[in-house]
């Protein structure tokens, strides 16, 4: 059951390098009939950086958002970025689990006249909201332009699958694959669907990062994907912006566009590519989008057993 409005925490990336994700989220929400209401004066979640430097301020940074969301009366907070989602979700969960931690965090929050009772705000990822609250059956009725013929690799990345799998298997999630089928697209087999994109490695140890990026792109390309679809601005940045650097390092020439899940969902809802921020990606997505056909691809015929294959055992008469 969808709400009419969700309290929304966009995260810094969506205001900087991932406008495409922000505009597609906004337009998809509107098309599906709900509002994303940005919470007031939210701050950065600290990404993976603050926890490496100083644990308690890192938790306090995240908890300021939870406390302010609770003060706004929000019982849920919808987050489109997997790293922000993880930090908010983890802080809420660990404050509930470890009272010592909750006490110290609240002592720090008190310096800003804030307090947070763990469990007050349920932190949710946007992909989970759309899939669980609206549901596949309802989504299927909203599709006006099915993505027939488009082969997509569902890339979950790390932080919605781990450490707390929020709606699916940790090792082998399939929810997004099912979403693509509802949209009329084909979901290709993708063994590295939860393999890490490298996070900040492309910055601090480029070859380590590029190797991880290369593995993911190669795996999707070899399985025939026209595009990789992600739910996280960091994954999109790494796989898209550094795809050519990874190509150079490994002497390959993959050109697999990296799209956000709301971009492909928006296309199927009949939105224009320009309303979904398509065109901001480094690896051009238009060749993939132009493959979308008006008619569903023929169902593959079930192969009959090859007569030349090993004979079935025959019972002696």
């Amino acid at each position, binding site marked *: 059951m969808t709400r009419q409005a969700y309290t929304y925490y966009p995260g*810094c990336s969506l*205001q*900087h*390098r*991932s*406008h495409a994700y922000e505009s597609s989220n906004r337009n998809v929400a509107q098309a599906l009939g709900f509002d994303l209401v940005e919470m007031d*004066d*939210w*701050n*950065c979640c*600290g*990404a993976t*950086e*603050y*926890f*490496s*430097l*100083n*644990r*308690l*301020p890192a*938790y*306090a*940074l995240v908890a*300021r958002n939870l406390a302010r969301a609770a003060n706004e009366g929000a019982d849920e907070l919808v987050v489109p970025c997997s790293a922000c989602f993880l930090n908010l979700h983890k802080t809420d969960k*660990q404050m509930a*689990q*470890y009272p010592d*931690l909750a006490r*110290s*965090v609240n*002592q*720090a*929050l*008190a*310096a*800003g*006249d*804030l307090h947070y009772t763990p469990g007050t705000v349920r932190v949710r990822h946007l992909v989970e909201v759309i899939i669980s609250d609206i549901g596949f059956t309802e989504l299927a009725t909203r599709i006006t332009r099915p993505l027939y013929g488009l082969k997509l690799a569902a890339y979950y990345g*790390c*932080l919605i699958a*781990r*450490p707390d799998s929020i709606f699916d298997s*940790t*090792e082998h999630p399939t929810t997004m694959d099912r979403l693509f089928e509802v949209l009329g697209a084909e979901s290709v087999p993708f063994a590295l669907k*939860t393999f*890490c994109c*490298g*996070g*900040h*490695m492309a*910055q*601090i*140890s480029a070859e*380590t990062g590029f190797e*991880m990026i290369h593995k993911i792109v190669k795996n999707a390309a070899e399985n025939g994907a026209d595009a990789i679809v992600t739910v996280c601005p960091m994954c999109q940045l790494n796989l898209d*912006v550094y795809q050519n650097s990874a190509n150079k390092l490994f002497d390959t020439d993959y050109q697999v566009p990296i799209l956000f899940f709301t971009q492909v969902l928006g296309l199927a809802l009949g939105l224009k590519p320009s309303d979904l921020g398509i*065109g*901001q990606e*480094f690896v051009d997505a238009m060749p993939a989008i132009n493959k979308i056909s008006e008619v569903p691809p023929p169902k593959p015929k079930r192969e009959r057993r090859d007569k030349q294959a090993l004979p079935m055992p025959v019972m002696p008469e």
Partner: protein
Amino acid sequence: MKTSQDLTFHDRVVALTPGGEALEQCLQCGSCGGSCPAGADMDHTPRGLFAMIRAEMEDEVLRSNTPWYCVSCYACTTRCPQQIPITDIMYTLKQMAIQAGHYDHPHATKFSETFIGFVEQRGRSFEAGLATRYHLYHHPTDMVRLGMMGLNMLRRNRLPLRPKSIREVDQLQAILAEAKAIAAKETYR
């Protein structure tokens, strides 16, 4: 309250990590190293590092590059049969290595510090500033390559040059200052 002198290195790692007690249960199976996407670059696997923590090899552990190659993907954490919060232990080790001045892999620290510098100042991260400041100081020879990439980002409207700030920066800074003060006192609960 115990002071740092009363606690072994192993105990301090445990105390600094929420749920860290599980470290005692490590059965040295190696699922962590096997699951790690950056394992090939590490000088010790997480499993090896945990054996070294048990052996009180503080100096070697805090000089290891292992935590710095951790990408925080939690693959080891979810697969660990003993439910050791491995990723969080890596965060603890990074923090301890910085405090001890013991790291031989400074890029990661400088990147984190530059990133958080903007956050502490404005409440939001600032990509254009992070990229230029970090690379200018730490990888100046990369500036040409980075400049090209920056231009490509700009052309796609993906690199705003003006930082954003939250409204109540004072509130955030008061919270962070208090958190730092508590952390300094309560490092070893």
